[in-house]
């Protein structure tokens, strides 16, 4: 088993409740505010999207499992704000800013810039000098989670269900920022990113159809060559 609650792909689960397109974009007023707060605080530039994901994944398992979607966002945001010393624990307890605290040099995202900032997004493709290690058609084996992140709490985008499994490269998406490094503020460390196709029969002991396929985007350092 993975040791992190967010890494849940392939586990048994409950019934799904389709909305067939009828659900409101934000079911509750605070959902939209939670999303907007997260994006606006992120625009201060103190952390990146990978760190945001990591903050949610690092919530205690009980909280991760108990919280609704936007509660996870709020909790992740709160922890980032405190870790980055933008907000103090006392301010959280009081529910208001400490007027005595030193000013923080930061420019809030102005409303007028919102459309342009959302339009620009945060492209992750980077040019790197190295050549890709794999080409389309290569057979690869994914590493184990402990090979990829010897420290148990490292952020990674290799799900447990696809670790130590055999797949085939179906695409090379150029090099992209490596979340495993970026989430921990250790630099962008861009690596080639590949589309990798797995057979359901190779991933699961009891697939619905062994010939169904599951495709994941995986970074070069998650993969090792397989000699055929």
């Amino acid at each position, binding site marked *: 088993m993975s040791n992190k609650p967010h890494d*849940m*792909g392939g586990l048994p689960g409950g019934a799904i409740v*389709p909305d067939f*397109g009828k659900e409101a974009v934000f079911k509750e007023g605070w959902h939209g505010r939670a999303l907007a707060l997260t994006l606006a605080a992120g625009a201060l530039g103190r952390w990146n999207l990978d760190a945001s994901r990591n903050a949610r994944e690092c919530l205690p398992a009980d909280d991760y499992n108990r919280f609704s979607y936007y509660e996870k966002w709020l909790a992740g945001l709160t922890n980032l704000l405190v870790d980055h010393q933008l907000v103090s624990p006392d301010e959280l307890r009081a529910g208001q800013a400490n007027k005595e605290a030193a000013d923080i040099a930061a420019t809030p995202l102005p*409303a007028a810039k919102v459309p342009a900032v959302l339009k*620009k997004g945060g492209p992750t493709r980077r040019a790197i000098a190295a050549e890709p290690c794999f080409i389309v058609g290569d057979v690869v084996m994914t590493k184990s989670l402990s090979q990829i992140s010897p420290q148990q709490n490292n952020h990674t985008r290799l799900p447990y269900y696809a670790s130590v499994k055999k797949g085939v490269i179906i695409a090379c998406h150029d090099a992209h920022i490596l979340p495993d490094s970026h989430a921990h503020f250790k630099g962008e460390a861009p690596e080639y990113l590949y589309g990798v196709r797995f057979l359901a029969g190779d991933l699961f002991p009891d697939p619905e159809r062994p*010939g*169904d396929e599951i495709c994941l985007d995986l970074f070069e350092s998650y993969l090792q060559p397989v000699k055929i």
Partner: protein
Amino acid sequence: MPHDHNDDHSHSLLPPDPQLQVKALETILSEKGLIDREALDAIIDVYQNQIGPQIGADIVARAWQEPAFKKRLLADAESVLGEMALSGRQGEHVVVVENTEDTHNLVVCTLCSCYPWPLLGIPPSWYKSDAYRRRAVHSPRSVLAEFGVELPEDKKIRVWDSTAEIRYLVLPERPAETAGLTDEALRGWVTRDSMIGTGFPKPPEAG
């Protein structure tokens, strides 16, 4: 340098009611000059009123009508969408995958909730639910059945787990009944779920 937040508990200092959490954070951050409340309204407006599945539906309807556009879209969606000014946050790098006679595509993000925001908007609750994230890769056929989607026995399913910053949009098969329809009428057939892979295009509901 900020430390890594492993099992942080600062969030537990806020009141348990998420509405009050939002209020507290908004108050603190605006008092400190870290957010502009009008920017929050502007962000909500973009996702509530401007961006949504109608954008993806336009792309699909055009691909159904223009073979050259479809060919480019499938080969290099990122360039095509960039030219149309349709890239953006959570959709900087998009790949479009085509449903065919042999293969049905289904999109999920098992690790979080990655979704092509600029084309489909904010994902619905079920897409973000543990049930969908857990089951879509292992039991896609039983998941599809819950959406009322039955596939022929011999049709292969290809599930796309969005594990990095590539976002996937499904190009559904054009229903035979839409022959002769163009633009507006055709767009009405393209449902959000048909672009995730949990549905098929269907006639627009009257009214």
